[in-house]
Every structure is written in structure tokens, then in C-alpha cells.
């Protein structure tokens, strides 16, 4: 019957709308469900994933030594030309010349954080750090020198 169907339609519609309102009503009355992160305020407690790829860094040990041999594997592996290695030749005590890095240039502004350079590095000299607040006012500041001034290659790394 037409009238019965009509009333049924109205009731069904009303029921479906009320179930929807029940869900939002539940969240309105349950504030503990809120999942907002108060980002700049919670810096102290912020848990960042250890593996998060934020930028390429070169770890130096306490003697200001790193493990980069200047083999340019990372430079070749990089799809964007982010890394530029400038080599120099150190005169060793025994008079032999040895290749070493002069400057490890890293263009953060070109980097897509793909991690291929870290994969390619044979001596694990570079790694991805989980820092992420990179914004600066001048773009030039994003071009970084990764090896610290006066740093040397660690003994025994070939």
C-alpha cells in the first residue's frame, strides 16, 4: 500500500539519520577520543621514529673522525644530484698520497629523502637523521657541508 510504504520510508530515513547523529554525538560527549597533537608545544615529548628520513648527516666520533673515503658511491647513487664530493689528496707520513674528502656538499633543498645514498655507502659513513624542522629564511643555508672542519677519516676504514 502506498501510504504504508510512504510512512515506512520516512521512518527508515529518520532512523538512519539518528544513527549518524548518535556517532557524532558520542564523539561530542567523549573528549578523550580527541587525537590532536599540539605540535610545537609537545616538542619535549615528541616521539619520532628512529628510521625517519629527515636529512643526510655524517656522524663524527669524539676524535672528530668520520668514515667517508670519498669514493663517490653516494654521489652516483643520488638521483637528484644532491651530493657533491670534493676530494683532496693528503700526504701521508710515509710520503704516499691518499685520497680524502675535502668537502662533502649536501644540497638539502634538492633532496627527496629516498635513502639511496645511505644504501650505496660501502663504509656506512653517512646516515639519515630524524630531524625534520629544516625551514630557513635563506635558501643558501640549505646547502650544507657534512664533514666538520678539520675532521679526518677514521683509522682502518678503507
Amino acid at each position: 500500500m502506498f501510504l504504508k510504504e510512504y510512512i515506512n520510508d520516512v521512518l527508515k530515513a529518520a532512523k538512519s539519520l539518528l544513527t549518524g547523529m548518535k556517532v557524532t554525538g558520542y564523539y561530542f560527549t567523549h573528549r578523550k577520543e580527541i587525537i590532536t597533537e599540539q605540535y610545537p608545544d609537545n616538542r619535549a615529548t615528541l616521539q619520532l621514529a628512529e628510521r625517519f628520513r629527515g636529512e643526510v648527516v655524517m656522524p663524527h666520533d669524539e676524535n672528530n673522525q668520520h668514515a667517508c673515503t670519498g669514493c663517490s658511491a653516494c654521489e652516483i647513487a643520488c638521483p637528484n644530484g644532491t651530493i657533491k664530493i670534493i676530494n683532496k689528496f693528503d700526504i701521508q707520513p710515509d710520503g704516499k698520497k691518499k685520497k680524502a674528502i675535502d668537502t662533502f656538499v649536501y644540497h638539502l633543498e634538492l633532496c627527496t629523502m629516498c635513502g639511496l645514498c645511505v644504501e650505496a655507502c660501502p663504509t656506512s659513513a653517512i646516515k639519515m637523521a630524524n630531524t625534520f624542522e629544516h625551514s630557513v629564511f635563506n635558501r643558501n643555508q640549505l646547502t650544507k657541508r657534512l664533514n666538520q672542519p678539520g675532521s679526518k677519516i677514521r683509522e682502518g676504514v678503507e
Partner: protein
Amino acid sequence: MFSLEGITKAIDTWLNAHFNSTVVLLAECVLVGVAAIALFAVLGLGLVWMERKVAAVMQIRLGPNRLGPKGIFQTSADTLKLIMKEGLTPDGADKFLFNLAPFIVMIVAMLVLAPISFAKNFQIWDINIGVLYVSAVSSLSVIGILMAGWSSNNKYSLLGAMRSGAQIVSYELSAGLAIISIVVLTGSLSINDIIQSQQNGWWIFKGHIPAIISFIIFIIAVTAETNRAPFDLAEAESELTAGFHTEYSGMKFALFFLAEYINIFIVCSIGATLFFGGWMPLHIGNWEAFNHIMDFIPSSIWFFGKTIFLIFLIMWFRWTFPRLRVDQLLNLEWKYLLPISLFNLLLMTVVAIMGWHF
């Protein structure tokens, strides 16, 4: 007792004691105007903040929380931003109508305030055809919207304005019928009389099922009339970017935005007046003690509390439901709401004549 009525009385006596009648009238006019503007500003800022908070919590977010306690000054900052924006007029627009439209919308919103009773004996003008006046004047705002949409020289605006034209006039009918069904019970069009008739209980409780159906129809219809989601087709942002106010910027946009919230307040206050007794405290039949306790709560709090509850209801709708399509919207009105409300009116008439209501 401290009440809005007392304050107005005091001001009136003080003015009459010190000045002659013309000056008193002028001064009172200025006072009323300033009070109305202040009410608008406070309502606009408060309701926008409320909307954002309600939306946020339903969406498991925090919402504005930076400026002031609980972000209460966020909307003031937003207004300041809008004032600092340049008000653009598109090249091809009909400049006169384009600039006139926000004024129309605003004036209409102002005019509807006149018969609303904010508290006991606190009313700008107790018109004896109060509810008729409200429904007549509030439907004028569609002219402002049509003007805005047509004069913008923008296709989205035009479509949005056309939609809202059809929508507002359609839902006007069921809103009117819902109002009439209460008028049948009270036998008066004056808002004051309607409130007085709810001395021993609100109509939503006294009027049996027909009153509840009326209320549901009323709340649906006014949601549609104020262009609120799920009936916000005039400004459906995923279809028409911003609908009729696409081309408006800066303060002119702010006026439309404000008018939307003022209109919500007005229709909700009408709803509160008709179905929940306006400023009338919650009275239950002959429970004298209970009624007496309820009387201690100031009438303005009753009024604003009920109105804000209804506003919350409308916000709840908005943050739950998807939007209707334009033909479904008109179907809902013409196939469902209108026949039901006509039938409901007859039912209500029977209830009123037989005296079945409490």
C-alpha cells in the same frame, strides 16, 4: 531582582526624569540601535566560535585553542583579518547591486529582531502579528542572496543564488505551516501571548504528537531556510566553490557570513519561543514548589539556553550529514514535508478544538 527588564525600566525612568520626551525617544532609539549592533557582534563572534568548537570535538580535534582561553578570541582575530582584506568588486559585476546585497541581508536580519522576546518584558516591539511578521520579513533575505548571486557576474554565484531562491521559498511553506499549527493552539499571533500560553508547560510537551512533528518539520525547514548543511546547496563548496558569495571578499563577505549566523540565531529563537516557551521557565502542571524554584533562574538565561540548544542541534546536523542534491532537496519539501505538515495541521486543529492538549 537583577533582570533585563529592571535595567530597561531604570534607564527609562532616569531618562524621563531628566529630559523631555523627544530627547528621551531619541536617546532610546540610539540605545536600541547600539544594543542591537552589540548583540549582532557578540552573537556573530560567539556562534562562529561555537560552531568551530562543536565541529572540532565531533571530528576528534581540538579546534581553536591558541588565542585566549579555549581559543575564544579566535573569531575576533578572524574578523580583524577580514577587515584588513581588500573588498574586491569584479570588473563585469553590476556594482550597485553587488554592493547593496550585503546591506539587504544585514538589514533583514536586523529587522527580524524587533518582535523577539529576549527576556520577560524585554522586547523591542510587541507586534500583535509577531510570528507572521517574522516569517514575512525573514523571507526577504532571499532577495539579498539573489542579488548577490546575479550581480557577481560569476557562473557559480548565479547557480548558487538560483538554488537558494528555489530552496528558501520552498521551505518557507513548511516552516509557515509548523508555525501555524502552534498558532492554532494559542489563538494569537503575538509572540508575548504565545509565551504566556506556555505558563504551565511548553507546547512541545503539551501539544501531543502533532507538536513534536511540527517541531521536527520546523527544525528541518529552518535549517534549509538558513542555507545550512545538509541543505547548503547555495554555497555547496564541493560543487560551486562558494556559491552566491564566491566573489565577495573582505568585510562584505564577513557581513554575509555574520548574517548566516544571525539568521540561525533568529530562527532558533523563534523555535524556542514557539515550542519551548521562550523565556518561560520549565513549569510542570501543578508542581508549585518545582515551578517556584525554576522561576529563580533569570528569564534571559532560559531564553538563550533554549536558543543555543536549538543552534547546537542545527550544528549537529551540519557536522553529521552529507549534502542533499538539488532535486532531492525539493523532493523532500514537496513530497514529504509539505503533505505531512498539511496533515499535521489538521491533526493539530482536531487536538485544539477537542481540547486534548494539556
